[in-house]
């Protein structure tokens, strides 16, 4: 590759290093795609954590894997596989939630769906002959070879998803924290639940293309969970969730560019580090408060 020949490695001069990052079209595409995905994941992830639907989100990411593998097998664009399987998965999850079983029966049904998805994924991969290279990036992500057209598709999907969430923000928030009162006030609680799963499916499909199917959580859950830890103000929380997702994506892409490890690894490690840092910080702050409030020994 010509690009490989031009690659100079990390110079430790921030300006030249940044220039290097933006010198190649594939890297610009990766940064654009990462930015789009981070914003989308930050917003939908915040609502997913609020709604305690991380298990459903995880299931959708597992479903993304056979989708991508099936698309590869059929010679279709991988993105098509992600989006169609996540869309179908969201419909299945909505069906499970709509059947109004007990909570434990619901998790059991979701879990079975997950196992089925994983099994299918490995079946497709073993039927497919370009096996190993493909499997790695399907599971753990890649930033190589994202085309400008793919960026365009991601942008269209993200604008649609984020617009839907913003327009429905208050009724969705109401339905998420207080379903009974929301229903009585005429909020279409069931429809919003169904619509949100579809948007979540879109977000998972888009995120999978950067982080890989297994590491979607790094962008969808961890930044959102950190934001919920940091603030109980809703709007600020969503903004923080997006900011953290953006930060770890940009840094993760830059680190992956200068090293041999997959981008999913960096994004996951960075967002996990932020989460742990915030938890520890809050723990210490609370201890200090408790000590300050404790009565002085006589």
């Amino acid at each position, binding site marked *: 590759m010509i690009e490989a020949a031009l690659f100079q490695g990390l110079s430790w001069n921030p300006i030249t290093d940044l220039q290097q990052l933006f010198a190649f079209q594939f890297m610009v595409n990766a940064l654009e795609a990462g930015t789009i995905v981070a914003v989308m994941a930050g917003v939908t992830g915040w609502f997913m954590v609020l709604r305690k639907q991380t298990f459903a989100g995880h299931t959708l990411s597992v479903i993304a894997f056979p989708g991508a593998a099936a698309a590869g097998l059929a010679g279709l664009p991988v993105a098509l596989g992600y989006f169609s399987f996540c869309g179908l998965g969201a419909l299945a999850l909505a069906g499970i939630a709509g059947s109004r079983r007990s909570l434990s029966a619901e998790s059991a049904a979701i879990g079975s769906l997950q196992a089925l998805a994983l099994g299918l994924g490995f079946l497709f991969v073993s039927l497919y002959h370009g096996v190993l290279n493909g499997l790695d990036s399907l599971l753990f992500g890649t930033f190589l070879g994202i085309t400008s057209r793919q960026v365009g598709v991601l942008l269209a999907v993200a604008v649609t998803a984020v617009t839907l969430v913003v*327009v429905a*923000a*208050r009724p969705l*928030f*109401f339905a998420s924290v207080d379903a009974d009162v929301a229903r*009585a*006030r*005429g909020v279409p609680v069931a429809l919003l639940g169904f619509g949100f799963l579809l948007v979540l499916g879109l977000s998972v499909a888009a995120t999978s293309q950067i982080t890989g199917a297994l590491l979607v959580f790094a962008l969808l859950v961890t930044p959102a969970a950190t934001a919920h830890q940091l603030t109980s103000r*809703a709007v600020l929380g969503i903004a923080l969730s997006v900011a953290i997702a953006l930060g770890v994506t940009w840094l993760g892409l830059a680190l992956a560019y200068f090293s041999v490890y997959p981008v999913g690894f960096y994004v996951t490690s960075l967002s996990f580090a932020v989460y742990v840092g915030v938890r520890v910080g809050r723990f210490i702050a609370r201890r200090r408060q408790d000590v300050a409030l404790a009565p002085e020994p006589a």
Partner: protein
Amino acid sequence: MSQAGTAADIEARNAKETAVAFERAAVRMGGRTIWSDLSLSVARGEFVAILGPNGAGKSTLIKAVLGLLPLADGRASVLGRPPGEANDRIGYLPQRRNFDAGTRIRGVDIVKLGLDGARWGIPIPGLPSRARDAARVAEVIELVDATVYARKPIGELSGGEQQRLLIAQALVRRPELLVLDEPLDSLDLPNQAAVAALVRRICREENVAVLLVAHDINPILSYLDRVVYIAGGTAVEGSPEQVISSETLSRLYGAPIEVLRASDGRLVVVGQPEAPFVHGGRHSHD
């Protein structure tokens, strides 16, 4: 000028004065009749309690008032409309909702949902209506004495504090009717008395009709205008003295029931293991 007293006029005036009217209503769920022949009338500014043993259908009645469950029989009107059509003029507190400790949403945001939670789109910052909304939210939080903790995550508050904020949420739109399903249930005795007094004050000062489901009649006994007692698949409505009497309850349960009045004025019902407020005595550790 024609005569003022045509049937339509009378009906219209009644609709204005009557918050809730049920006539020989029945609700069926899963093929089973929960109650039938239930009649009820609540005027504006009246404080009415719904009593009855567990599973009698008290929450079912609340849901019928809100139009969340259809009537199988009879007629009903709420704020002059069929049930469910005037819900934006009703403040609703469902039965026992506790936010778990992990819910990191501020109390004030929960209250604000009562005001604008059903609105689509995002609010435009700087609009005068936003300042008005914020002022109304602050006012109603002050009304329920929750200002001190309204900005904390609601999951970290006690049951009584959560309950006050939820009552504020139900009140924030200045409803004409307040339906409260067991609002005193998870509270200790001082908080029960305080919340009951608060509801009564709102009822009187703002002329709001109140329909309150209670497990124990005693904290609200002195405030009540009327009582609906649901048991045995039907209901009796009347003044507290009429309904909470040995004769009425024995008839309703089809078994001998005795109502005693303790020296402090509290009512104690004996003879029916399932009846509420049998444990009328004060808790010694309070």
